[in-house]
């Protein structure tokens, strides 16, 4: 992703010369950065499942960006809604988890303790659980294993 960009543009942020036409409804984009999004990822999967699946099936038909604008707006709105609810209800556990992720290369397996408190809070307040799709059914999922093999070196 490091392509050549003109030196002229580097002193001020890029602004698109041609914005969307007014006929397309406007939606507020999600202003959350990568670590909080990674922390909320499985809850986004649980809460916004139908909209996400709609969008992915639409993209499978045609990868042109103009084709899936409506489904994309729905996904954005649902994600914004969930992040707002998470911050209202579980702000402290959420902040702890994503700060831990940010200090650990954004790997889940190094941050199980804050993750457990966040999962508990989310289940109590919003009724959402983290399920890993495609996990083998007989065994406990990796985030619930008590003594994992791959873990942080220090306790």
């Amino acid at each position: 992703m490091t392509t050549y960009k003109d030196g002229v543009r580097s002193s001020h942020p890029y602004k698109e010369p041609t914005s969307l036409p007014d006929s397309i409804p406007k939606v507020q984009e999600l202003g959350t950065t990568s670590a909080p999004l990674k922390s909320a990822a499985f809850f986004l999967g649980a809460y916004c499942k139908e909209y996400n699946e709609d969008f992915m099936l639409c993209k499978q038909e045609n990868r042109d960006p103009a084709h899936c604008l409506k489904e994309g707006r729905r996904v954005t709105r649902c994600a914004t809604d969930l992040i707002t609810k998470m911050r209202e209800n579980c702000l402290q556990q959420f902040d702890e988890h994503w700060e831990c992720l940010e200090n650990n290369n954004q790997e889940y397996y190094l941050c199980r303790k804050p993750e457990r408190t966040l999962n508990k809070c989310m289940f109590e307040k919003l009724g959402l659980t983290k399920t890993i799709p495609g996990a083998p059914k007989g065994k406990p999922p990796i985030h619930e294993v008590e003594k994992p093999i791959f873990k942080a070196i220090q306790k």
Partner: protein
Amino acid sequence: MPVPWEALIPIGLVTVMFGTAGTLIKTSKQAQNQGKPVRYHVDAWDEMMMDRDQRLTGHKRGQRSDPVPPEGFETSSVWATEPRR
């Protein structure tokens, strides 16, 4: 037989030089990453997310959990100008 203390001088010098160089490199890298450890195994997805973080916060390692983006975020993406993959 007396201890060859002159031999310990270069050993000590080399240890101190290695140690100083390592510490300075670590401090420099942490300062570039806002005090956090360096990101490793960064793939194309992570690069794209870090570019997005830069558009949102001004630094590749900056993080914010506010769902409302800052002014100008919607039009600051250079995605459309890059060559098609």
